[in-house]
């Protein structure tokens, strides 16, 4: 197991109601796990706990068997990388500068990225189809392009697990499809992936297993095809949801009366 989390809970200081509790999750190499749930159910907080950026109020997260709290930031960064929902820079760094930073956990304190980092940066940008942006200012490219740049940085960081918080939120329809194909390719090469999404379709298309977080219910984890039933989805989102199967694809439709 690359990551295993047992009985995770998180509550904000001074508040009785936990954001979530009793959450267990483990991820093996090459596996894709999706976290589904409505707004405010604690998906991003869960990801931050898994990445060691927030301390859970209950339970432990282990990376390759070691408690995450016992690892240095650099050791964690060599094992996992998190791509947040959105990110703004203050400085107008070039895309090249931003992507090269991914080498940080592999470099000594006084080292700066060299030829190897430059090559990895070019390769990563080419893989994501944004090689032409290498000298553009990160602050001047679109939200979707920024997300791709962040993922390029993860490729340069070369962790074993990539955690993505709503990776498709800023992507257009074609880029969403390309992105799903890319994640599948990366997983096939051994990278473990955890991602959140607001599109159950993406879980159905991509995830081996899915964790469903619904308000007021314990989280449920299972093989995507088995756990994502109309009943579970309807309960999680609080609206009637139907799954439509056609030609090997499954689409998810919310049935809200408009009258």
């Amino acid at each position, binding site marked *: 197991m690359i990551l295993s989390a047992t009985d995770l809970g998180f509550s904000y200081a001074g508040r009785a109601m936990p954001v979530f509790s009793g959450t267990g999750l483990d991820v093996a190499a090459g596996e894709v796990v999706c976290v589904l749930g409505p707004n405010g159910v604690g998906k991003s907080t869960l990801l931050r706990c898994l*990445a060691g*950026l927030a301390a859970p109020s209950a339970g432990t997260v282990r990376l390759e068997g070691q408690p995450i709290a016992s690892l*240095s*930031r*650099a*050791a*964690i*960064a*060599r094992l996992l*990388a*998190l791509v*947040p929902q959105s*990110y*703004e*820079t*203050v*400085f*107008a*760094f*070039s*895309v*090249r*500068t*931003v992507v090269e*930073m*991914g080498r*940080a*956990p592999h470099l000594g*304190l*006084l*080292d*700066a*990225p060299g030829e190897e980092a430059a090559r990895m940066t070019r390769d990563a940008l080419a893989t994501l189809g944004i090689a032409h942006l290498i*000298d*553009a*200012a*990160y*602050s*001047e490219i679109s939200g979707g392009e920024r997300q791709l740049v962040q993922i390029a*940085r993860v490729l340069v*960081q070369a962790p074993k697990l990539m955690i993505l918080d709503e990776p498709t939120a800023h992507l257009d329809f074609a880029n969403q499809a390309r992105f799903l194909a890319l994640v599948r390719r990366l997983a096939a090469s051994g990278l473990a992936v955890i991602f959140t999404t607001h599109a159950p379709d993406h879980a159905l298309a991509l995830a081996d297993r899915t964790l469903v977080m619904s308000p007021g219910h314990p989280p449920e984890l299972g093989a995507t095809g088995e756990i994502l039933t109309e009943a579970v989805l309807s309960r999680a989102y609080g609206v009637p949801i139907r799954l439509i199967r056609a030609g090997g694809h499954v689409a998810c439709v919310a049935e809200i009366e408009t009258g």
Partner: protein
Amino acid sequence: MPAQTSKPKRSLAALLLVLLPIILFLLSFLLGRYPVEPVTVIKVIASQFLPIAQDWPPVVGSVVLDVRLPRVLAAMVVGGGLAIAGACYQGVFRNPLVSPFTLGVSAGAGFGAAVAILLFGERYATQACAFVFGLLAVAICFAMNRFFRLNSTIALVLGGVIVGSLFTALLSLLKYVADPNSKLPVIEFWLLGSLSSVSTADLVPVLVVTIPCVAALLALRWRLNLLAMGDEQARIMGVEVARLRLAMILLSTLIAASAVSISGIIGWVGLVIPHFARILVGPDFRRLLPATLSLGACYLLVIDDVARTVTAAEVPLGILTALIGAPVFMLLLGRGRLGWA
């Protein structure tokens, strides 16, 4: 518009940033009331390292080595030091309005200097007190942050505002009780900033602190890029943020405090030179820090040259830096890209 300038343009900028301080350094020895030939300047300086027969009057040697050398070096060290400390502070705090004085170094140093002027009236005491109280002000900021468990850089900057006004108030109190005929003018003049009476002995402790700190900042400068991405991003990339930030602030504060201890309060350089350098070489700290160092050194050297040549009664540097700099940078601001998103 691309964030990076083309390669030939960049190497030209790099060459200029190396040559300019050297040229200005040598030219500055020619300025002053006692005329010295350029060849003689080079010979006098070289004679310190090479066996060169002395064919110049002793007074020339004294003018070059004892009067002009410490002053020229001091201007470059103070200017370069304040500028690089300012660039570092702006990166750490991710804020374009931050300067090396933001956490209260200048207010603390001003108070320290006034205490020393009132109690001892002796220059070394003034320099030492300014340095110590400058550091103390920043230490109080950090202690406050730690005590109230505030974990944000905004809280640290606000702490700097509070500590700054506290020391400014204490300084005003000292000015109020100081003898208006003897002590008060000395305090006021110190606060305006000047290098007019710098000697080699004053300069040595400043160099001992500044050179290693600047070297450390330059060695760590790529890590400043990571820190400038923000705490969470830096953590994701494996940076121990709190430790690195503390190290960066400590190094730049030591530089700023030792600069202020010898020059008095010279504002502006640490705020504006980093912006100017960013227009020239972009926001990447790998190029930005060396560029700010060079430009800061050149800028204050030119200002000090103007101060000691234009008028017989020297205009304080704190006044000149802004008076000459403001229109120049207003022009640049209108024309250049700032390198901030």
